[in-house]
């Protein structure tokens, strides 16, 4: 039987914030790619010392359709997602996202949509599927 730790009581847990973001990429992209992009960028900007405090995690990702007139940019893919981090480090994590410019030699851009305290309200207010 796998031993499991008992879950921490809420008062001792780290406080979290959820950042809703969207990304536009020229080509196909998966969840692992997004994780590696965000982690690499945070390591480059803040180093191991800073990135260790973030407690980063990609919670969810949704593929979206690109705008109404996607006739010319067939390869362009748009995704929306939710990123979890510690409450004290929200500003730093937010600073990491705009520094991501390239992935596998192709252009990529991240925009934050908003910050929320729960996954539910982040999806409802900012993702708006």
């Amino acid at each position, binding site marked *: 039987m796998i031993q499991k730790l008992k879950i921490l009581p809420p008062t001792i847990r780290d406080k979290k*914030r959820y950042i809703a973001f969207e990304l*536009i990429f020229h080509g196909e992209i998966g969840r692992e790619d997004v994780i590696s992009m965000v982690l690499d960028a945070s390591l*480059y*900007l803040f180093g191991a010392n800073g990135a260790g405090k973030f407690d980063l995690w990609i919670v969810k990702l949704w593929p979206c359709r690109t705008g109404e007139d996607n006739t010319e940019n067939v390869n362009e893919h748009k995704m929306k997602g939710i990123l979890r981090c510690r*409450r*004290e480090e*929200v*500003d*730093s994590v*937010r*600073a990491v*996202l*705009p*520094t991501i*410019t390239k992935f596998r030699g192709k*252009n*990529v*851009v991240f*925009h*934050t949509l908003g*910050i929320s305290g729960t996954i539910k309200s982040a999806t409802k207010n900012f993702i708006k599927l």
Partner: protein
Amino acid sequence: MQKNYSSRINFDKSKFFDLHMHGDKELINEAERLGYAGIALTSYFEDYNNDFFNEFEEIEQSTNLILKKCIEISCKNPEELKKKVQKSRKKVDIVMVRGGDLKVNRAACEDRRVDVLSQPYRSRRDTGLNHVLARKAAENNVAIEINLKFFLKTNLRYRYQVISQYRHIMDLQRKFEFPIIITSNSNSKYDLRTPQDIIALSKCFGMTIEESYGAISTTPENIIEINDNRSIFVIDGVKTI
């Protein structure tokens, strides 16, 4: 608990400006979606002709954004700069000089007709500014530009240099109080960032939230306002009614 996490401070979110953008209609629409209120469409001095003017008017009719014409002058020596500024001052709203050379930096800081000195740190190790230039820039109301594309396009290995250059500029700015603006210098929609992201990123350059908000909101707004009234000002403090 730390005091400043993003959602704390609620500034007026409807007044963000970007004074350096080379683009077409698609880019302007994207900027509008990201929450900008005003944009300066920039053309290089060599490319400024009737085509740009026509395109500008076409775009202006189709959007709700505040659109301004901006010209970017690149020159090798101060004499050339003076000629080019003289030529273009009355044609456009905003005159921007691309720096990098020390003499050009100095000439641009001393010229009242110049609005923005773009990238004084370009292809240099230091900032290209010192206390003399900073004082001149403050006297003549020349804004210094912090260029985000320059930061983002620099190789990851050398980004630390850019960050330290921006930090030194901010140190000078606090002492001499010349205007400072943050621009995107975007060619495509992959270069654009939302204003809130820019505020978060500029914390890495040692700017406080108030400073960075001023750099993308109130200072550009002042520049636009001054230039709207430039024709009626005779000299400092005197205007025709």
